């Protein structure tokens, strides 16, 4: 019985208790006008986001499995549970949560969902928005809301769950999350193929095979991960033996190919040097190859690296930052600006002092402001983290 095997992780506090305590905390903060920074594993604290908080709410201790019945392929966990713990617990049952955001695996489920972070597996499994079934939230009005549910299909009521995924905690503190799991594939093999962005996209678009992930890496990144010094498409194939064999044969026609260990994905997730600036560009999938070429030119000039989820049209650019002098900031400003000019750009990380000047605030359209007013009228939760003005 799975619940027994994960018993050690179960939080000593009942779910509602913690949420109730947090609600009191939010209520006092609201009364006192003390804005709160919500923190999970702390991995976003150095991202440079201009959050104006005076106190911190840490969810790192609020970890553990609330409910896990493997036969349901769903799991409910406290927000502070790390992705690494989730992976370990579900793997024991032949299952996984196919969410692999960039950064450390000691990141929490809560932060992954709050930031809407996803990695290469989003190619086949979608982003947190597609995998979260429900959540418990303590709103900026100090209400404990239980949105959605624990079953895989649910249209009861308005979708407060989607509203909080990717909201960076500005509408409520996520305290508990239910997700959909998948069974681990019979085979899970990864191959590195030397191929251009255009040819990679052509194969992915037309092939009868759907890889679990297909991430194009710039030569610099390939060299860093020791898979080669040309642009390399890292392809993760899952399924039964016949399916994977068929896909391997099809892939081999693309270019020089070799199998690499699955640990390559963890290496990719942890590849960016600490303190790097990270900008995510996106476009329609068919235009990704063109975007890749233009972004690569800029990234190479900056001696950075890039990788792209071709089927999603996402190109993630990593720019090294050396020091915090004016000259370095001016250089960085130029590089980020050049990337922003290429299309939809989401800044993940940047030196804090640069943020207000070059990142456009999010969620400042009239509807979004009304949403914020409804759930955090006094701007108690993570104020400024979306770049919005006071």
């Amino acid at each position: 019985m799975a619940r027994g095997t994960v018993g050690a992780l179960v939080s000593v506090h009942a779910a509602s208790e913690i949420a109730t305590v947090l609600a009191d905390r939010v209520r006092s903060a609201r009364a006192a006008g003390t804005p709160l920074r919500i923190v999970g594993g702390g991995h976003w604290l150095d991202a440079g986001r201009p959050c104006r908080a005076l106190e911190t709410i840490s969810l790192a201790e609020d970890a553990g499995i609330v409910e896990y019945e493997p036969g349901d392929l769903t799991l409910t966990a406290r927000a502070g549970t790390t992705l690494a713990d989730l992976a370990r617990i579900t793997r024991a049952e032949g299952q996984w949560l196919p969410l692999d955001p960039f950064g450390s695996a000691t990141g929490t489920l809560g932060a992954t969902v709050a930031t809407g972070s996803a990695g290469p597996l989003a190619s086949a499994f979608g982003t947190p928005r597609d995998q979260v079934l429900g959540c418990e939230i303590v709103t900026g009005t100090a209400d404990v809301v239980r949105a959605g549910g624990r079953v895989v299909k649910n249209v009861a009521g308005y979708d407060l769950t989607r509203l909080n995924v990717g909201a960076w905690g500005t509408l409520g503190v996520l305290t508990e999350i239910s997700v959909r799991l998948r069974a681990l594939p019979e085979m899970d093999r990864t191959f590195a193929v030397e191929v251009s962005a255009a040819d990679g996209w052509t194969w992915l678009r037309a092939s009868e095979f759907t890889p679990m992930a297909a991430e194009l890496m710039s030569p610099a990144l390939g060299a860093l991960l020791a898979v080669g010094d040309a642009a390399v498409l890292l392809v993760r194939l899952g399924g039964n033996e016949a399916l994977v064999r068929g896909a391997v044969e099809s892939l081999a026609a693309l270019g020089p190919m070799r199998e690499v260990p699955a640990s390559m994905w963890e290496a990719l997730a942890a590849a960016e040097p600490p303190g790097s600036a990270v900008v995510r560009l996106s476009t329609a999938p068919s235009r990704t190859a063109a975007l890749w070429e233009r972004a690569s030119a800029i990234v190479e000039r900056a001696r950075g690296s890039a990788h792209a989820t071709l089927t999603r049209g996402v190109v993630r650019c990593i720019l090294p930052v050396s020091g915090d002098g004016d000259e370095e900031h001016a250089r960085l400003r130029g590089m980020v600006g050049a990337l922003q000019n290429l299309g939809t750009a989401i800044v993940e990380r940047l030196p804090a002092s640069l943020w207000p000047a070059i990142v456009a605030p999010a969620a400042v359209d009239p509807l979004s402001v009304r949403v914020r007013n409804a759930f955090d009228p006094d701007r108690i939760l993570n104020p400024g983290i979306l770049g919005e003005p006071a």
Partner: protein
Amino acid sequence: MTASTLPHADAALQARLAAIVGERRVLVRAGELRTYESDGLPGYHARPSIGVFPGTRDETIAVVRLLAELGMPFVPRGAGTGLSGGALAEGVVLLGLHRLTRIISIDAEDQRALVEPGVVNAALSRAAAPFGLHYAPDPSSQTACTIGGNVAENAGGPHCLKYGVTLNHVLALTALLPNGDVVTLGNADGECEGYDLLGAFIGSEGCFGVALDVTVRLARNPQAVRTLLADFSSLDAAAHAVSAIVAAGIVPAAMEMMDGPTIQAVEASIYAAGYPVDAAAILLIELDGAAAGIDADADRVAAFCREAGARGVRTASDPAERARLWQGRKKAFGAMGRISPHLVVQDAVVPRTKLPAMLAEIARVAAEYRVKVCNVFHAGDGNLHPNIGYDATSPDESARVHAAMAAIMQACVAAGGTITGEHGVGIDKLPYMDSLFSPATLGAMCALRDVFDPARRANPGKVVPMHSCREWHAAPSARS
């Protein structure tokens, strides 16, 4: 008032609406409005005060702005195939959008389409077929239901087991808010930052406004398909086969269960599919994907069914047989209509491991209330569809049927499930919302509704019980 006359105010409204959409597209007579008195769920009837049917985007905007100017409530409606009473317009304006049927573009390269809300679900897949593409969500009403309605209900369908529901297939949409504002939600050409207003809009049951156009993902037609029919001498055995397949990591495109009464109803109808009429349950399981490996999965699925006690497993030998097997499933509601004049349809969801116990509980409730339940449902998702045929003219039978449904719903909630997996709350499931959500959660839903429709004029009285819409805490200090 009599059926053919309108009070003065409505006559003035009629004239103003006619000036926008033309006289023929404004309906006021009882006879003309009868079609619009109910949706796909028989048993609920409500007459709109007036029906207006714009034919273009601009007409739709003009109509909604006029209604905003007059402060009048309205109910959006697509094809009226909904199963929750969600499109019922009790004495208010009914805004029909089924004439907005333009497929504006199909982008084969990026596998997406831009469509107007009145485009019929199956028509979109037909239009995409020359490109080897289709629109994946496939509610059983897909030959009639519209994309706009699908968005409003976050519609599902058998193939959502593998491919996901409407939410997972909409990239962006242009929303016309109840106050007449036009806003873009989502981003068809890249990622989105900020609040997922698109996600909030999908499944809002017409209470947040209407979609003027929708950008949807199209899925590639699979290279290979295998459709299996497994027949069982007990519901329990079929339910265990479902669990075994799911646990093995095989994700069928669809996995549907039908019980004996449903099979018999289908086989006695013009939709007869060749199902074994003496089976207690059948599973209709479809696998799709690359040709490589599909037979290995099909063999394993067949083996799981046999291990669980299947009397036989057969595979559709050609596309015609496959279509026939599916038609029996998709027309099952229609087939039940042959047997009883009225039908209640629910779509509660339970955790998958609770399926065997819940099917037993449904049988127990049916016996207790002396009603006949037909189960036909999305077994792979745990999404039940217990249907009860009855004669609504019998007060005693009606009372027993509704009491039985209430008992089934409460059992599903108690098992950790939900009251609706794809049909929506509408008015039909309003009484159950309090048992599923806390007052604070329902209050939060009202607060979200007020973001999109502060005057609460769009589809009034649906989804969230009125008593839950207390003053949300934000109000006193809310900024403008």
